[in-house]
């Protein structure tokens, strides 16, 4: 039987000013008809390059050194541009990572679905309209006729991804490439998209290449999983096996790095002494302007307390208000309500004195923006030392503390990787010897292996200094590994605040249960 897709000894280089860089080494893989192959790798592993090679959409500096790419009996590398337009979308579909940028903002949804149908199925506009409504209703979009008339910005991210999936399935292709289709979506929305994919796959029997950085997620949707590292295929195995018995060392490391709620990383109990108590916190962004009203508060009378040495998790989807809590507690946003810290009552950012500023530190999500590009690492680290009465001679110690070479003091931020920048930000926070560190989604932009190292570092720092953490994240599995207690927020309200071990119990809020169900727990 001819495989739906066959990659044989494929090797790809990118030509750069510094000479050729190999991105794919001798890749061979096959996908049978109706089979789903998961392709897992971290950023820079070459997984997207393989997708672009298959779609014949490589950048100009790409050099195909060896190997072949076949779709059924079609040699993809030999297609003329004209033949290519008959293959793309028709035989080989694709679903993209970010649905919000993949649809043309100035064309209606209907137009963008039907143009593909007209192109590939040779039907008239009127038939295409009828078919499109049918396809959209099949991806569980309510009122598809109305959606057809809307523009992309008028529907949600999840709805956009459904539209793209409907378009991809609409021409009944042999195989569809999924490039991280849920990464840009919220956890629950992403889980629904995966359910949809499973159903459509069952109904249509389409084959798929499912690309993701998330090993746990891939094992749930794929029949087989291939692991890519630095452009090499290190392991291919049935999805059920890869977690249970990873053979290759790189796969084992990847499996190790995947957060699993049952594998707790902290074993001590926090003290009962309350370090910080916040009550009735409402965060307000912007005031009324000359020509507009003030927006509603981002959080609705939130109350929480952090105990000395505790790790308190704060979980929620984007827009839930979890980062607003962090900004209120660090005086970066206007708030109403009270914060009690070290026997002092704080009702406004102005009440936050130097002692509070020193004791409560914050680390931000985006390492690129949290370090001033015009200051060297040494200057960045010297500020908290000067401000809170430390000595700049401590800088090497601070760098060692976050496991960076002391020579990094002379570097500019743009000379560091994302993980290294985040370490510098951590060193800056710990330079103040704080009692509480607020981590605002600090691992979200990092690869799982880097994330695991950062988490390990934070726990080591906590063991050494006794610092408490308010750890804000969207990743429930991760926080269940490290937190003593976990708070769950939705649309500005706190729906749960429970000890981590109670999260398997029945008494969590329905929303929390939904969140848990949507967080992919590894198979096996």
């Amino acid at each position, binding site marked *: 039987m001819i495989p739906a897709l066959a990659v044989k000894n494929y090797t790809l280089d990118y030509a750069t000013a510094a000479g050729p860089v190999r991105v794919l080494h001798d890749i061979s893989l096959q996908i049978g008809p109706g089979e789903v192959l998961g392709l897992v790798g971290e950023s820079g592993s070459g997984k997207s390059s393989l997708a672009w090679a298959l779609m014949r959409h490589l950048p100009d500096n790409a050099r195909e050194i060896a190997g072949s790419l076949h779709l059924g009996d079609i040699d993809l590398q030999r297609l003329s541009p004209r033949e290519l337009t008959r293959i793309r979308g028709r035989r080989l579909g694709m679903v993209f990572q970010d649905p919000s940028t993949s649809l043309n903002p100035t064309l209606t949804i209907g137009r963008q679905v039907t143009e593909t149908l007209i192109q590939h199925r040779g039907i008239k506009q009127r038939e295409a309209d009828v078919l499109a409504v049918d396809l959209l209703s099949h991806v569980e979009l309510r009122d598809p006729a109305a959606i057809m008339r809307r523009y992309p910005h008028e529907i949600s991210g999840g709805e956009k991804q459904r539209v793209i999936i409907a378009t991809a399935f609409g021409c009944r292709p042999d195989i569809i490439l999924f490039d991280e289709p849920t990464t840009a979506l919220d956890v629950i929305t992403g889980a629904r998209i995966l359910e949809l994919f499973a159903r459509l796959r069952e109904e249509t029997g389409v084959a798929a290449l499912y690309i993701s950085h998330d090993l746990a997620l891939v094992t749930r949707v794929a029949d087989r999983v291939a692991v890519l590292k630095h452009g090499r295929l290190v392991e291919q195995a049935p999805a059920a096996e890869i977690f249970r018995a990873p053979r290759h060392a790189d796969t084992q490391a990847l499996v190790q790095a995947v957060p699993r709620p049952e594998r707790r990383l902290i074993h001590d109990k926090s003290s009962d002494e309350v370090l910080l108590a916040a009550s009735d916190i409402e965060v307000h962004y912007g005031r009324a302007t000359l020509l507009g009203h003030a927006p509603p508060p981002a959080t609705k009378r939130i109350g929480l307390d952090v105990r000395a040495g505790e790790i308190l998790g704060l979980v929620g989807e984007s827009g839930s208000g979890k980062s607003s809590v962090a900004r209120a507690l660090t005086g970066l946003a206007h708030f109403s309500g009270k914060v009690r810290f070290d026997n002092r009552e704080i009702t406004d950012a102005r009440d936050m004195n*130097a002692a509070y500023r020193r004791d409560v530190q914050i680390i931000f999500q985006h390492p690129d923006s949290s370090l001033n590009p015009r200051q060297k690492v040494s200057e960045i680290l010297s*500020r908290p030392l000067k401000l809170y009465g430390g000595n700049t001679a401590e800088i090497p110690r601070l760098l060692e503390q976050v496991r960076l070479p002391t020579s990094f003091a002379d570097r*500019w931020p743009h000379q560091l990787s994302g993980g290294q920048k985040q370490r510098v930000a951590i060193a800056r926070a710990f330079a103040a010897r704080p009692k509480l560190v607020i981590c605002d989604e600090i691992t979200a932009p990092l690869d799982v292996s880097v994330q695991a190292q950062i988490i390990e570092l934070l726990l080591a720092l906590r063991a050494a200094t006794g610092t408490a953490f308010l750890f804000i994240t969207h990743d429930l599995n991760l926080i269940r590994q490290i937190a003593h207690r976990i708070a769950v927020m939705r649309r500005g309200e706190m729906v749960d605040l429970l000890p981590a071990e109670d999260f398997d119990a029945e008494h969590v809020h329905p929303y929390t249960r939904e969140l848990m169900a949507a967080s992919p727990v590894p198979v096996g």
Partner: protein
Amino acid sequence: MIELFVRLIRRPQGLVGVTLLALIAVACLFGQALAPYAPEKIDFLGRFRPPGWQNWLGADQFGRDILSRLMVGARSTVPMALIATFVGSAAGAIIGVGSAYLGGRTDEAIMRTNDAVMAIPGLLLALLLVSTLGNGAGNAVIAIAVAFAPGMARVTRSVALNVRNQDYVKAAIARGEGAAWIIFREMLPNVMAPIVIESTIRVSFAVMLFATLSFLGVGAQPPASEWGLMVADARQYMYQAPWGLIVPAAAIALTAIAFNLLGDGLRDALNPKDER
């Protein structure tokens, strides 16, 4: 600085811009000494003499050497544009940073008014001011500076607001840094680069605007050999002696191009991400 300069001239556009500007600088500083003739020296035998070994770039209606007038005139053209741009940019930057720092309703009121002032075309505003203050090079410089300020205020404010929202500024606020540190050490170094680039490009507009004012008779006054004035003088005789027109026109255009190229070159060179 040396590092920056090397990065600047490594690209062709930066190299061409810097070379042209070096020539212009030489003309501004030593034009008087280097010029082959005195700029006012009248030679009735040499009226409308075409470019040749006697007058390299030709002579005008009084037989004055155009090259000499051009070299001496550089000093009454380019420094004026530089001063006007500098004053206008500084005023605009203060308004822009101040507005971004004050924020809220004050910011909105300042910027709406600023936009309203921008509704008066630059040349018109300059003309009105000069007609009130009186003709002359000095007043033209003031008028250009005033006409430039609102545009610079707009650019500076948007850059400052963007920097203000970066996490490193938030980090500085959160750790309790004073306003002076935040503005001068965290924000200003990141705001300066775009302002310098924008101002450099604006010098080319100032050169053109100043020449235009002189051309219209309200900027530099005869017998100065300001370039716009030279074009205006030569217009009457452009059929007999087109070189009298083309040479100063080319000088204006080359100066404008030089500052444009320098601005574009600086934009690339000042980007720290290229430092790897």
